[in-house]
């Protein structure tokens, strides 16, 4: 059905596009969720297991990422047959492996707090129930990006702590006017040594994932230069997961 909805919308837009000027942020989001499977299907998602390749320039690494609506998350990268876990969160503790020792280490409390207050709420989509998360959305007008006309929405999330100081945290998303899906988001690196650097994330290759459409290609650019390119091979919605998957292993 979602395919039908998408095409119906497309036809309507072709016919009535000239009149479809005034848009509120919530209308754009409603169209987005409607066109990508319907809000109920989005809300029924509890977890997702993504398998794919993460490319950094000429290098690429197979990965498996599991994300849950309660914030739990685990990313596993295959490094020459070894399982390397750059980041994981078990609902309480955020951790990752040290590349030198391949042992798990807890991440610093600021990073963990920032994750808990933001990204932990963002799955499966930061705009889903955004008000309940304490987020705000603002319509910023129209702009041409990636060669197409888009609606521009600003998503203000919960504040971040950067080296002890609270900072604003927001990103601008560009929704294709033709089909209402986000094709680009932009923010500035909020913390760390690259703070202030422009980050662009490009979304494409929307395909079915269970009952929704999800971007299977996600490319991140830093100051306009391609940085990380995620290619998703498969998505499993609501996979069965063992709690142990997310917990930090004890040191050997």
């Amino acid at each position, binding site marked *: 059905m979602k395919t039908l909805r998408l095409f119906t919308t497309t036809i309507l837009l072709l*016919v009535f596009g000239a009149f479809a000027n005034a848009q509120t942020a919530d209308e754009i989001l409603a169209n987005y969720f409607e066109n990508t499977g319907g809000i109920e299907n989005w809300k029924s998602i509890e977890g997702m297991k993504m398998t794919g390749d993460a490319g950094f320039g000429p290098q690429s690494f197979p990965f498996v990422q599991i994300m849950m609506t309660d914030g739990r998350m685990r990313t596993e990268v295959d*490094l020459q047959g070894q399982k390397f876990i750059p980041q994981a969160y078990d609902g309480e503790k955020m951790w990752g492996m040290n590349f030198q020792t391949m042992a798990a280490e807890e991440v610093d409390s600021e990073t963990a707090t920032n994750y808990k207050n933001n990204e932990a709420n963002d799955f499966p989509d930061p705009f889903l129930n955004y008000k309940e998360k304490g987020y705000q959305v603002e319509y910023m007008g129209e702009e041409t990006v990636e*060669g197409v006309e888009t609606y521009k929405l*600003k998503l203000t999330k919960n504040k971040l702590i950067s080296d002890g100081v609270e900072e604003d945290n927001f990103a601008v998303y560009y929704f294709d006017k*033709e089909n209402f899906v986000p094709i680009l988001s932009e923010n*500035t690196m909020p913390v760390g040594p690259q703070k202030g*650097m422009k980050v662009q994330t490009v979304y*494409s290759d929307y*395909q079915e994932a269970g009952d929704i459409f999800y971007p299977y290609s996600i490319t991140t650019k830093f100051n306009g230069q391609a940085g990380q390119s995620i290619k998703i091979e498969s998505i499993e919605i609501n996979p069965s997961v063992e709690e142990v998957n997310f917990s930090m292993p004890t040191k050997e």
Partner: protein
Amino acid sequence: MSGIFFNSKSNQKMKRLIYLAIVCFIVPWNSFSQEISLKGKELFGDIKARHIGPALMSGRINDIEMHPTNTRVMYIGAAGGGVWKSSDGGATFTPIFDDYVQSIGVVKLDPKNPDEVIWVGTGETWTRNSVSIGNGLFKSTDGGSSWTEIPGFENSERIASIAINSNNTNEVYVGVLGALWSDSEDRGVYKTTDGGKNWKKVFYLNPSTGAGDVIMDPENPNVLYASMWQFRRTGWSFNSGGESSGLYKSTDGGATWNKIKNGLPEGKLGRIAVAMAPSDHQILYAVIETGEKDTNGLWKSEDGGNSWKHLNNDFGLTVRPFYFSRITIDPKNPDIIVKAGLSGSISRDGGKTFKGLGNMHSDIHDIAFHINNSDALFCATDGGLYRSWNGGTTMEIVENLPLSQFYQISVDNEEPYNVYGGLQDNGSWWGPSSAPGGVQARDWNSVGAGDGFRVLKHPTKNIIYSEMQGAENVWRYDVDRRRTKTVQPLEEAGKPKLRFNWNAPMAVSNHQPDRFYMGSQFVHRSDDMGDTWTIISPDLTTNDPAKQNQADSGGLSMDNSGAENHTTIFTIAESPLDENILWVGTDDGNVQVTTDGGKTWNNVTSNLVGVPANTWVYHIEASVHGKGTAYAVFDGHTSGDFNTYALKTTDYGKTWTNIISEDIKANAFARNIQEDYENENLLFLGTEFGLYVTVDGGKNWSKFTNNMPSVAVHFIDLQKQTNDLVMGTHGRGVIIIDDISPLRQLNQEVLNEDVHFFSTEPYTMVEQSGFSGSFGSETQFVGANKPTSARIIYYLKKRHTFGKMEMEIQDMDGNKITSLSPGKSKGINVVDWNFTSKAPKLAEAKTISFAGFTPVRVPAGKYKVVLTKGRNTYETTLELQYDDSSLATLEERKEQERMTREMFNMVEDLAYMVYELGENQKAAQNVMENHPKGKKVAQNFYDALETLRKDLVVTTGDNYVASAEPELRERMGELYANIASSYDRVSGAQKQNYQLISEEFTAAKKRYQEIVDKEGKKFHKFLEKNEMQKPKLQSKEDYLEKE
């Protein structure tokens, strides 16, 4: 959209219906849209600019703004390079205003919401001859991520000050200095009480007098002071001062203003700076330009402006008031004040005496104290931003602000090519367009002092010509011998005094390598690299004596720097097709051409169309497309005319055509044009507000914005071998667009294709390896390099959003070499391929081996690019060739490729053997744990395999200092990686090592087989006997395929 069909699992019939509906609907719609507009930013798609600086000398900064409470945050407003923010206390900065005009007057934070609300007044305010213009007032409410232009200030040109009521931050005053080159009513003090929605001009004197400093008493926001300045610049003079200038005060929130007279000088006044001590609001300092020794300089009031006393007229306080008119007072101590100036002056006794600030670049425009520690202060100069930690005695430069202000640039034909150029107050330089690790400060070489302008490389010799202002010196620099000689044309007996422009024209001949041209009011030609000169023209200017009184320039303070020299030749262009054709443009509006090497000159000025008389001829481009073809760019901004003018002639100037369309932003006056060498319709226009491109000879123009700020582009060159467009910007250094050749191929036919691959020349697989030593790059600007990869360039008619879109490189037989991540934008997409296939799969071990990250380089030859988009595939081929400068012969290269392949296979053979071994161990372990009868047999098998495994791969330790001794996998991997990544022939040592490792591997395989034959046989017999399954192994192919 088509991808949806192919990926959906929905009802097929329904899909077909919908498909029909859409097709029926789209087809007629499409039939009306065959003509696709040849403009818009999607034309450029992924084609991006890169910045190479330099930042080592940085550029002019107009204003500094400190966050009122957060010591980590500060901003600078550059004269021509935009707004930059530091979040690390001034160690590094990032640009936050690139989409808007880059000439900045003032940056001001909202005192209540300094994290969110930023005001930017554009248009630099230290009004030298070469200043850029602003474009209004802007406000951000999200810390600089996005900006809104405030209506009503479009014609403000220069905004000098912003004062905000800290109790009610919706109340804002803006001091508009206004137009420099003309009368304007957009001047004075403006006020809003609703955060910028509505404005009222609360103080205005006349069309020639603007507002400089507007300051507010924070305790009593109805008390305001404004310094008003009567000033005017023309192309040939400057005047500071008049009866209207003065210091004014309002005590009723700007409703009424009174000139402060109590003790202050009267009559004609010039520029005035005023500041209030943050720690005592009754104390005011003013620096007043009077032109009289007794009254010039610093004044002080200790009673809120009621009475004043004259304190000081030192040089440091009175020098060039139009350029230095800022006083900053220590936030804690009203007796410590700093005055901007040639070197900057600091007083610690309330202004009685001053000493100079520490050594730094001269011309200090603004000073700001750290909010908590007055030992720390920042200075904005003509050469960037400086920090001091000891009260201004020792200064250090901020190293990542690439604000360099080029007047001109040129390029050579080296590989990588070099860029040459001259800078405002920062001499002349050359540096590489790419360098190991990126283009860094250390890569740039100085080749001139003072202000730098044109820098040209001799066409065949390692000699560089450069100059300083007014051709006071023209240098011929022998790079190899490190010898400099001054070679400018000098006055001759019986000839008039030479008039050189501040930015005097030079040109080298395309036809006679030693020929060198210069322009005064005459064209000078030298055929011996500047040793002897011949005048080959009459005075080609209007020679208007009214524009030759520079000795009287300056107004109240004389300012005869040479910057206003006028009635001079400004541009000389020799035809690339004929050495006898020379074009000349003058700063007073003449276009002259000779077709006989200067014997006769034809003044074609009267043939120009749509250009007001006497408009500065900024650039003439003699075309490669016809002897009579040329482009001329005219700049009227020094008479207040900001229109864009560019004309084309194809008949030696007899007739001209306007090539500017309405697509170009208002006020974006142009200084330069560059034609493409192949497609006559492809042109690049450098304007005050950035770069514009046309692909149809000027009918439509599109602004290029991909990593390209709206910065003034003063000069453009097109490097012939690389097709790189190189821009000299006046505020953001050198900006390069790599390989513009796809733009040559854009036409209606291409734009109507769903997917179009642009043809590319064969790519050379550049062989470079070395060290970059990136020390210091944490806080230094590092310019981006030109990609050395192959570029797959294609046009997409529609943005790809739904369904799979993938790209593969294949050999010509269709075997996959590698996958690439394709761009999906509507318009031009660029995908880089670094000539490699995949890295080998390594045996599992305890540690990571570098070999697993070392891919195989492909041999030279042709390759297929296959783009799959839904059900459709699109193909193109590209050709790779070896680097001519290779250290290896072709035979040696082939041997290296063969050995790389052999080692690659060996590494993967070992990986599969270790996999097989491991699967057998798992089976043995299963028996050991679950079948006591077979435990001994299984244990024997397991142990034998484990002993072998420990010799094959590292099984203990970590990736750092706890690493174990390397085993066969690690040594084999290292040899593979060394051979695969080398550009030289395989060395004797490597061959010997290869022999050793091959033998070891053969021995290992033998050992493994012996174990399988002995312990393995017994184990398998046990399995068979007990009807247990043998371990299931993936085929080698499947195992290696699995990523």
